[in-house]
């Protein structure tokens, strides 16, 4: 199963990157969201899957799934959320100021 999840994470990376390479800002933002999902699945799988109970201490249970990756994912989810929020507002403002959401029209030139 791990292999399948890793492939899934790879697919998320691939679709994320494909979206990142688009022109429209909105698509690009969606790309970043997919990217973080992919990254989180990679982290989760690195701690092995389904080896024991959820990491909440319970009497009589000795096997727990690896808690560390879960903690890392939690931290990462929150940070990604913060960035996504900022990115959305930034995208909104950029589109408004520059009157386009097409990244190819947001090139600018170096001597401005």
């Amino acid at each position, binding site marked *: *199963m*791990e*292999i399948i*999840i*890793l*492939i899934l994470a*790879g*697919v*998320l*990376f*691939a*679709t994320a*990157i*494909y979206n*990142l*390479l*688009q022109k*429209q800002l*909105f698509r*690009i933002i*969606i790309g970043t969201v997919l990217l973080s*999902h992919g990254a*989180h*699945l990679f982290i989760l*799988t*690195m*701690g*092995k*899957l*389904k080896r024991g109970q*959820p*990491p*909440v*201490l319970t009497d009589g249970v000795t096997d*727990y*799934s*690896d*808690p*560390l990756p*879960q*903690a890392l*994912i*939690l931290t990462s*989810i*929150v*940070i990604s*959320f*913060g*960035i*996504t929020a*900022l990115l*959305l507002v930034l*995208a909104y*403002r950029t*589109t408004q100021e520059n009157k386009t*959401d097409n990244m*190819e029209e*947001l*090139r600018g030139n*170096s001597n401005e």
Partner: protein
Amino acid sequence: MIYAIFAPLFLALFVPLLSRIKDKIHTGVFVFFIPFVIFLYFVRFIGNDFQPIRETVNWIPSMGINFDFYLDGLSLLFVLLISGIGALVVLYSVFYLSKSEKLGSFYVYLLMFMAAMLGVVLSDNVFVLYTFWELTSISSFLLIGYWNFKERSRYGAQKSMLITVFGGLSMLGGFILLTIITGTTSIQGMIGQVDVILSSDYLLLILVLILLGAFTKSAQFPFHIWLPDAMEAPTPVSAYLHSATMVKAGIYLVARFSPIFSGYEWFFIIVSLVGLLTMLWGSYMAVRQTDLKAILAFSTISQLGMIMAMLGFGTEAAVFAAMFHILNHATFKGSLFMITGIIDHETGTRDIRKLGGLMTFMPMTATLALFGTFSMAGVPLPFLNGFYSKELFFESTLGLDGANFLSQLIPYIAVIASIFTFVYSMYYFFGVFTGPNHVGKLPKKPHEAPFGMLIAPIILILGVILIGLFPNMVNAPFLQHAAEAVNSGVEYQEIYFWHGWTSPAFIMSLIVVGVGIILFLTRKKWTGIYRVLPGNLSFNKVYDSLLKKVDTYSAGITNVYMTGSLKTYMVLILGAMFIVTISFMLITDGLTISFDDIAEITILEVSVVIIIIIGAIATLFTRSNLALVLVTGIVGYGVSMLFAIYRAPDIALTQLVVETISIALFLLCFYHLPKLKKREESVGSKTVNIIISVGFGLMMTLIGISAHSTNWFAPISDYFVETSYTLGGGNNIVNVILVDMRGLDTLFEITVLGIAALAIIGLIKLTSNKEAK
């Protein structure tokens, strides 16, 4: 000795103060005493029984960089030139530069140069030498750019800086290699390890690197091009830096390192060849010039080439002649520059075509010029020092042993170059001082220079005559020591004027004079050829176009990838990452796939995975904002389901909440963002996108599988399970990790959120404020 070097730098600090009273007393008057005292200090060392002395002051001893000053005969020769000519130049400048100029900065630069130049010739430590070396380039840059309101002046300054700093840097490379090979930073220490150096693999590289430094500084072909443009500097500067001292730093360097390299055949080949070529090219170019300073500039190039060639020969006779000529050249060329300055000052032009017949107006200047030019031409008269060293030069060209082609050729090149030297020397003197005068057309009415201005050239010309009459006066106590420092085999020999009719060197001199006179008299017929011959061969054009190409190509190259397009950046970045990482995976044989330790596959999981994949791929094809948000939501909820399945209740919940808020945010935003458009893409760019995204995703999966298949160590998380309750006091291990074991992460995770919140406030409010106005 150390005080002598740092005194000019230190005293330069007071110059700006003194320049405040320049209306009363010319700043140069104060400055004059600095080189003068230094000259007096060093002149004491002249004597038959001179012994080298050394003084050391620590600077960065742990890196082997110390102020290690070593005064031997060679250094003494240069030190006296620097301080002596320096004093005369300052004296001359008092009359040359009017008080309305920015005298403060002028003398600060000049003193900076003086200190730097003294440092160059006295440092035994290669890195200190390099430091002073660059300081001479910097001060020269500032002095050339002294009248920086002139375009030519800026051009010349930048050119000289680029070329000499280039040389300096390559010299630094050579020094570093020498230091590494010998383990010492002292030049004398290196000379003690000649065998080690000569057997090094890098010998040729070291030689070339160091010679590049010397050749650029001493304006050797083809790096000579900066010198004519350096003539934009005020004439005292040209006389001092660009004729008598700084340009001889390269000569000094070659002389200094001669004991190391003279046993190496490439040293002989490169140095003598470049020297002779420079001599020939310089003297030929000098003939073509019409600006008096340009004539002298090319003449300087040619003479430097001659000295360089003699150092390349490396024989006892040649080395001695080189030392002698360094001294002689400084005297007659220095005076000629000053004379040119006088002519410029008194007539308002330096164009030889406009000048003529000035003998009657400026008899004193004319007399001085006569001695100067004739000495430069090497006219065989007993009171001209230039003749002596020229003849010694001829002798040294003949004394080269060896049947190789180069040695055979050398005397001929020497004679041809000397003929041109003779021609331009005559042209200078007769063109300016004899013939019809055009006084009416000159910008100023010519008259004799004020006496003060003449003092310095008179002293130099007296030097020309005295050395000519009594050459042995400077021989044993002075030149002999200098030559010994370069080639320890030099033995004392009297300098004679007369070597007999049959002496080959004398015959060569006669040929020079004879052919020279013919060429000079018939010069009008040759002007056509002089115009045409170098044509596009000019290395100036190479430099100019090189610089232009640097500008256009750098812009061209940069604009290719710095398009401002995020897509281009991402493609290049991802492409590079992909190619290199994949190659590393293949080279290091990193791929491992093991199915040993794997969880079972269930239908529930697989179906969730398939839903996520469908959702993810659907993001690529949806055309409406709403649909895009929805499929993204499906992916997000799918992922949180996976978290739940894989027994991670905390993240599953968090993901659920975050996903919901995100969707709300997206919906809010998509309300404001423009509608999705159909993607218009070329097939090519689509292919690139697909290759990169699929390739990158695949690569990540492969690395992930390999990482997962590697089980060398037990993860540290067992510890967390053990201590979660006992030490952390909580049953939910993930929570204990977050708030306790890795509490620092959480603290700063919250900080990140906080910053994001503040940033969003700033983004929104600052705009609404702006709009309100």
